[in-house]
């Protein structure tokens, strides 16, 4: 009955390997999920200003109170009105593209 005993040992060995593989798999899934949540890349909000004569434009950080169409001062080139032309966020978290 040596053969049967060997067979039993092989069975135990297989079970042991399967258990370890499953454990590693579970751990790795859990670790990967934990890692996913940690990507706090805050987008930067910029305000684009432009002279109504269209001879000057600049970008700066958004400050509270800005809105599109707000008159924000005088143009450094021609002295006409400077207006906020656009406000948008750049460099936000990119959505991962799932391959089809």
């Amino acid at each position, binding site marked *: 009955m040596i053969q049967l*005993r060997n067979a039993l040992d092989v069975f135990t060995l297989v079970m042991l390997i399967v258990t370890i593989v499953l454990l590693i798999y579970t751990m790795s899934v859990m670790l990967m999920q934990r890692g996913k949540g940690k990507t706090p890349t805050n987008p930067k909000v910029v305000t684009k200003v432009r002279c109504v004569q269209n001879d000057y434009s600049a970008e700066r950080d958004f400050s509270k109170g800005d809105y*599109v169409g707000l008159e924000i001062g005088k143009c450094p080139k021609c002295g006409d009105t400077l207006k906020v032309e*656009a406000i948008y*966020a750049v460099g936000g978290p990119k959505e991962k593209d799932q391959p089809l």
Partner: protein
Amino acid sequence: MDAGSSSDTWYLILLLMFAISFILNFTDIPQRIQLWRFASYIRRRLIQMDEIESDVRRRLINYLGKLNINSPKDVVDNFMNNYFLIEPVDIEPIDIIKRLSHLINVRDTNVKTYAERYMPGIQKSERYNAIVALEIASAINLVNKVLKHYFKLGLKNNNWVLLMQLALEMPNIIRIVNSYSKALDAFFSGTPIGDGAGPLLVRYLVGNSEPKRIAEDTVYYETLINGRRVYAIKAEGPGANVGKPGEAVEKLVDMLGGNVSRIVTVDAALKLEIEDTGEVAEGVGAAIGDIGPEKIGIERAATKYGIPLDAVVIKMSLEEAINTMTKEVYDGVLKAFERVKNTINSVGEGGSIIVIGVGNTVGVL
């Protein structure tokens, strides 16, 4: 070890396998185990929901406090759970739009009165932003409550199908709720959001012309572009507000005696997963995402005088629509702007055209 004890072991293993297979096939125990697993998964997700909700509450109270509002906590608490809207009877469709729009107006007025009462002496645009922030917090509160309701119901009735559905939907719901929570920052600081693509396009179209009020919180501009008379409608900014574009178009078209060559609606549209943000598409119809009254107003105005009704949409995801406008969406607005200019030029010289910038005008004058 002798032969006897070894075959005993095999006998035991066989018996065990038989028992396991019996349990798996002919009892509810596997479902019970699944139920237990799904329940613990949902429980963890609900804790996450609670965290989001209390974070939203804290930020909102903090924001209202900065506006020098007395007892901001009460302002938030009294708003939650109230101001629901019961949809009108729909098995009798006669005048359903009238009844619905009446109810919406009453609710709007109630919310605005509430805001005026508890936030006196605050700029209108700031107050409108605060109202949207309150609505967001209230919506998140409601979603959390509904989720907990179904969870409890599932546990109570041992309904593992319900719990399984809930568990599978949970990540998507959390994702949406999270983007609403992030959207608060846009309304706190008053930056334009993705949904403001339409109003922003109108702002670029009308240049320096003066706004004239035509419906509640809604204005129109009149301007000449390449010899075509352009009437552009948008909500009144820069506070968070969608206005009443349907009512405005009906009034404007009647005012012009139907003498309009085209009506163009411009709006943000939810993109399909495989589409890119900022894609622009043209079609026919009223591009507007309201529950009925405004959309039907535009359609009726166009149909009454047989005016062609065009739609230009700028594609974006839900997250992008309710959060600070991204560069991609902004580029989409510029693309759509060129398309609208082409449409204006396609109208004969001397003709007139109405352009409606549909969407929330927060951060756009």
